[in-house]
């Protein structure tokens, strides 16, 4: 069973519909036991990092999530779900996050007014490494982004894909061992987004890490 973690950080309908479109059995859940038992975990989220972290703790979900990641359960972060995997976010005056990925989450500070914040729309993902997540997806394919903050990992070995916006090249896909995470909304990114989700659902992380290309 696939657990879609509901920590009151946004609308999960699209994530569930995307899983259903792939014929996957997925459950939206806030239940720590269901998350501990899940074969795969999808960790979505929209909104502010501070509220997301607070509600994750209130619901008692931080421990089961850490535990599942440690046990090697395949784990997919999406958008704010990705951001709070880093050590700290600049949002809400500074928020301590889960620190699964070393680094922080920074606000776009565009050099020109032409770059609007939030970034809303389809932007290219340049594949930095080969990874099963990218199977069947051409380099520089576009995915759907909605965000004002971006992941800035300090350890480059986490970077799987990168995207240019507002004067920065940021890590739009991260991953290591059994964890992968996208800044974009793969569930709303058309057939290629669906393909990426399918790649995650069939991924066996123990047999493949990332390798530089």
């Amino acid at each position, binding site marked *: 069973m696939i657990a879609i973690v509901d920590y009151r950080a*946004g*609308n999960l*309908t*699209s994530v569930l*519909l*995307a899983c259903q*479109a792939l014929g996957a059995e997925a459950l939206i859940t806030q239940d720590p036991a269901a998350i501990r038992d899940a074969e795969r975990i999808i960790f979505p989220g*929209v*909104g502010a990092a501070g509220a997301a972290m607070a509600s994750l703790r209130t619901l008692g979900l931080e421990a089961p999530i850490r535990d599942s990641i440690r046990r090697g359960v395949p784990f997919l972060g999406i958008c704010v779900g990705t951001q709070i995997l880093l050590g700290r976010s600049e949002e809400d005056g500074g928020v301590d996050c889960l620190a699964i990925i070393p680094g922080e989450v920074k606000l776009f500070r565009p050099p020109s*007014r*032409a*770059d*609007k*914040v*939030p*970034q*809303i*729309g*389809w*932007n*290219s993902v340049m594949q930095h490494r080969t990874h099963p997540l990218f199977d069947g997806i*051409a380099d*520089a*394919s*576009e995915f*759907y*982004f*909605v965000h004002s903050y971006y992941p800035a990992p300090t350890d480059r070995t986490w970077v799987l894909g990168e995207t*240019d*916006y507002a004067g920065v090249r940021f890590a739009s896909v991260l991953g290591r061992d059994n964890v992968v995470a996208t800044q974009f*909304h793969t*569930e*709303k*990114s*058309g*057939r*290629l*987004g*669906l393909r990426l989700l399918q790649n995650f659902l069939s991924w066996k992380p123990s047999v493949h890490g990332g390798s530089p290309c």
Partner: protein
Amino acid sequence: MLTKRIIPCLDVRQGRVTKGVKFQNNVDLGDPVEMAARYYDQGCDELVFYDITASAEGRPIDIDMVRAVARAIRIPFAVGGGISDLADMSRVLLAGAEKVSVNSLAVRNPNIIADGAKAFGSQCIVLGMDPVAVNKPAQCPSGYEITVRGFREHTGLDALDWARRAVDLGAGEIVVNSVDADGTRQGFELRLTRLIAEAVGVPVVASGGAGSPQHLIDVFNTAHADAAIIAGMIHTGDYQLPAIKDALTQAGVPVRRHW
């Protein structure tokens, strides 16, 4: 590079997509879910549905249609028309829409923008506006006045003031639909689009007047729109989305090329 979005607009009346000029002479174009699926296949970047008779008739949004669309396509779509409160917004978003668009409702009750943004996030709240060119320098110094109720009613609101205020309240995106250009297929109202696009920090979606790929090139290159709504030019079959995207690419406008 962030690409410019092409957004087909489907005006839905009694469960069918219709197209008219300035809300008149509507003709039946087809089933909304089938049309959404077709444009999705052809590489549209987003879709918008206006339940165009809902607000005049006081009917709620057709939520079953929203659910059916959400199952049929895997790209963002917005729904407008017939939204009267937060509960309506919540129903539409939980049915699978990415965004809700408010227009007349926000003019009557601007706080709905703030309430919606607080409850669901700014990225979900689109302000739709229908400005018309006017010569009322005292009341509308930008030269454009906001109309409501299908352009029938002038509000006295200046378009530029209203756009800025809506963004301050929490609108995440603004659809600028020119009353003068709507349905003409003679090109977007570039001056109006540029005025709003350069004044606000959120994405501006140009609407009204798209008739050819050149109109899209103009609105992106000279009016700095972030996205553009098209309707008649593809509903009639005069143009197809892949060819429109090819023309934009050749003109140096970044568009999504993989789908």
